[in-house]
């Protein structure tokens, strides 16, 4: 559209200008891949250590490791760390609702009772 520039002096007020996104390069990407790989190795290794599997730390630590992997991919490969804050909001909001729903459902179906509340 050509003629909207009539008022080019009035910039949108609430949003930043399209910023140049400075994505990291190979030097960061391969390190990220390495970390991801190492965590995966740790996860699988943990699966094969019976004493660890039996311990109370097993489930929480597996969850933590996968959460870290999740966060790394999202923030580096999906550039959420570098991109416009709008994208962060578009992703984390729904993710929050989704995660809460998952937890609530597991609680309601008694899959989390042991940890969070007394059995009925």
């Amino acid at each position, binding site marked *: *559209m050509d003629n*909207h520039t009539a008022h080019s002096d009035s910039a*949108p007020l609430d949003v930043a200008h399209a910023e140049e996104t400075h994505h990291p390069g190979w030097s960061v990407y391969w390190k990220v891949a390495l970390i991801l790989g190492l965590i995966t190795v740790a996860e699988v290794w943990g699966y094969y250590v019976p004493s660890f599997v039996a311990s109370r730390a097993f489930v929480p630590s597996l969850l933590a490791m996968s959460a870290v992997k999740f966060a790394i991919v999202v923030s580096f490969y999906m550039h959420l760390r570098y991109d416009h804050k709008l994208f962060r909001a578009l992703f984390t909001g729904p993710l929050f609702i*989704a995660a809460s*729903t998952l937890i*609530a459902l597991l609680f309601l179906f008694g899959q989390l009772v042991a940890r969070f*509340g007394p059995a009925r």
Partner: protein
Amino acid sequence: MATTAVPAHAAHINEHAFDEQSGIWGWLTTVDHKRIGVLYLFTALAFFIIGGLEAEIIRLQLQGPNGHIVSAELYNQLFTMHGTTMIFLAVMPLSAAFFNFLIPLQIGARDVAFPRLNAFSYWVYVFGGIFITLPILFNVAPNGGWFGYAPLTTKLFAPGLNIDFWVIGLQILGVSSLAAAFNFITTIINLRAPGMSLMRMPMFTWMSFIVQFMLILAFPVITIALVFLLLDRFFGTQFYETAAGADPLLWQHLFWIFGHPEVYILILPAFGLVSEVLPTFSRKPLFGYPVMVYSGMLIGVLGFGVWAHHMFAVGLGPIGDSVFSLVTMLIAIPTGVKIFNWIATMVQGQLRFTTSMMFGIGLIALFTIGGISGVMHSSPPADLQQTDTYFIVAHIHYVLFGGSIMGIFAGIYLYFPKITGRLMDEKLGKIHFWINFVGMNLTFFPMHFSGMLGMPRRIYTYDSGQGWDTFNLMSSIGAYILAVATLIFAYNFLKSRKRGEIAGSNPWGAGTLEWTIPSPPPEYNFAVLPTVTSRYPLWEGDERDAESARINSQEGKTAEDLHIVMPYNTIKPAIVAGGLVIMFSGLIFAKALIFLGAALMVTSLYSWLLSPLEPEHH
């Protein structure tokens, strides 16, 4: 402060609005958000009448004890289709009509972000709507209730085609809603005119914005619930097979995780419309704008944490009951804030009781009643006496009819002149309002009594001597009165479209952007993208607002005159939609159709994606 930015000029109808591609072909291929909005409006009103007719038969059957107008089988189809039609085919698309028509106008855009996707959403809706509605003519309509609880909907207990139509139909309609929601989110974020900051957006656009997020988060859940049911019914999986150990509560949870946000999806657009109506006819800006925005957001977020209040009778356990009860009660607070802020908007105003205003005030009065009965359900022990009785039916109609439908009527009377260039007949409008108001209360208020006096819902007949006869008779008479009201409305609507008084660009003296442009708006909406400096550019904007309003209120120029690039018309989205529906219906009719539909869909989709949206820039 400029009192009004609209230059006084003789009101006449903007002849250049819809003529760029007229005839049926023009409507089939249009990608213009306004025309798609009009299509939505007409289609959804038609479905509203169909849903209403179903309700009338229900009321005829229940008019007295042991009624036998329809059989039990047909009755069960009628209430299922009444609920499904009203929710998915009438109220949601009526809201969508306003999303389409209004949002780009309110934010100062020339179209939505993805015009062809928009056309696609509409066609999927129409085809899906026909798909799910037609079976009632053959006595094979869905009959599982609008929330289709498993295991009643599994093959074992519902071997017929009825539920197949429902599962597939809803799946199709979900595609339409999702596609539209992505479109509007993007549109609102990205196509606001210069200066149209988020906190200057008209309240209707804000509420719609929130609704779009609720849509994209709620619909995937019912999609999955339906996929499970579909796999169970067609491919022998066991998600809802109790013999295999399945828990019927899975369906209920998944459905209501969708279902509760859905009810706010139904009400927030109406809230938004009323938030346009009240300031316009009070000549005052909306009271507490920021709080209205935040309360809407809060309703949206909390709406995802209350679903199990539909399941207080299933035995969630005391902790689950308590938590969901408390969160449900919390929702009353932001909703109350809205009610009070609307009333405060009118305080000290100069209230003009146009039909639109009367429907707007009607919403406040009636929705409050429905909201209050909602709070009464939110206390689980008390709800155990109420759930699945007519007390619930009373609640849902006070919020849905007294809320959504009243708000939508307010919106139709307000925006009819913008859509058609002509005013609706105010006298008939007021008659419509009063008959509607009386009929509505006569129909649904007695249901509070029949419910608390023990009448379960979804019963196709009841025995005499149960103490329900009088209340049911009242409800039925009320329903017939509502039919009269609806007929008056339909007459007014059709008559005024052709012969109504000519409106001019701003017949109500309203303050927002959409009133700066001619009625009906030209295909490009704004000759120049406006510059916005306030929430009500026509009331309180500075001279830059006035300038853009002046330029845009000029009529008679075509897009070509102004060198504005508009998207091509195209039939492809409609074909993709057709392919999608053919593909799904193949599950019922013939496997070959699945492949045929898929092939049609994929090829036309590629052809759509590879063809340019609009002429190259020059």
